[in-house]
């Protein structure tokens, strides 16, 4: 089980992910609504894993991912984006993402992906 930081600009998606991850026995140590906040919260909380939305205001998910990886190369980040933005996968993986989930998602698969990334 892991300590997880959820990054998404919509409260609805954060709440949904929080419920899914909590039901899988994980601790949600914090939330952030944009990429800049994500980096600050990451440095403050040192979570085991981050779920990161790609499209966000101010600093987007890819930029936030790069910043987090620069600060902590061992950071485990799962990117989360909408259908049709799968092209982002390559960019995210290149930038150091450990996993990828596509919205809309189903709870069991999200938990499986989180488990895989945490245990890797």
């Amino acid at each position, binding site marked *: 089980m892991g300590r997880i930081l959820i990054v998404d600009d919509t409260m609805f998606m954060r709440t949904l992910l929080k419920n899914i991850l909590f039901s899988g026995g994980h601790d949600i140590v914090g939330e952030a609504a944009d990429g800049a906040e994500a980096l600050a919260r990451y440095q403050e909380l040192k979570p085991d894993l981050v779920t990161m939305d790609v499209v966000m205001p101010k600093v987007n998910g890819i930029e936030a991912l790069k910043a987090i990886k620069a600060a902590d190369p061992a950071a485990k980040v799962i990117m989360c984006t909408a259908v049709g933005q799968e092209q982002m996968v390559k960019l995210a993986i290149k930038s150091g993402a450990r*996993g990828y989930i596509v919205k*809309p998602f189903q*709870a069991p698969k*999200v938990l499986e992906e989180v488990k895989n990334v945490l245990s890797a």
Partner: protein
Amino acid sequence: MMKSVPVKVEHEGKWIPTTMGIGEDRIHIGAPLDCEIPYKSMVDLEEKKNQVLITAGPDAEETYRIASVEKVLSVLKKFVITQCSAYRLNAFFMSPAIRGGVLVQDAHWEKGAIAVMKTGIWFVSQESQVCIPLGDVAGIEFTRREIQEKDLDVVKIDHLIENEVVTSFVLCPKTTLQVLYNFLSEATQNTKYDEELDPLTGQVAMLVYSGMDSSAIENMLKLSHKDLDAIYERLLATGFAEVLYVRKEIQLTAKGVRYISDAVKSPTN
């Protein structure tokens, strides 16, 4: 030369052990059916656990239910899919590519054939035989995907496998792809919709999709039981959802309260 294998066939509502000959251009089912079915007369193939259902013509279409071990059914399916009367094309496919929103880690393109039948699409390669029943197709999209550093046209098919939303991709020449896309669009007209949902109902639908139950949805969206019921009614009316089961909320009667009161009393009292 036919290879004979043991199978069970459904006959007058009962499963009867018999033999089935699998030949180059036909199968022969032993007694009590005792019939030959040329592959070319077959118009549909369905799979249900350890059974296959073969529908064959020429005029009065008849469906044959055949049960056997996986190995036998796999050989049978391959002959049927590659020789039956169906729209067939050579293609690359990736199925499943995404499961429940998560990319399948070992997903890869397989070279094979696609047969579009009456009730489903079959993907067949050396490694696998995958069926997508048309009734389970939730979306079709003509899109582009980066494959070996080239942006290529693909058809993306979203479908359900045991309530799990799965995405598969098909890759072939653009003209063939367009034919496949048009066929699938036509065959899945029943899942097209005109209705728009209000934002709250849309959020509830998204939560149902993600696997949340009523109690979790009420908590997340701060909805009362009655409000959620009304939203469910809207989703049912639009055909976007169906009733999975009806759960009861109860309160104790005087008899029940007495039982609980007695149960918590200390034995020494």
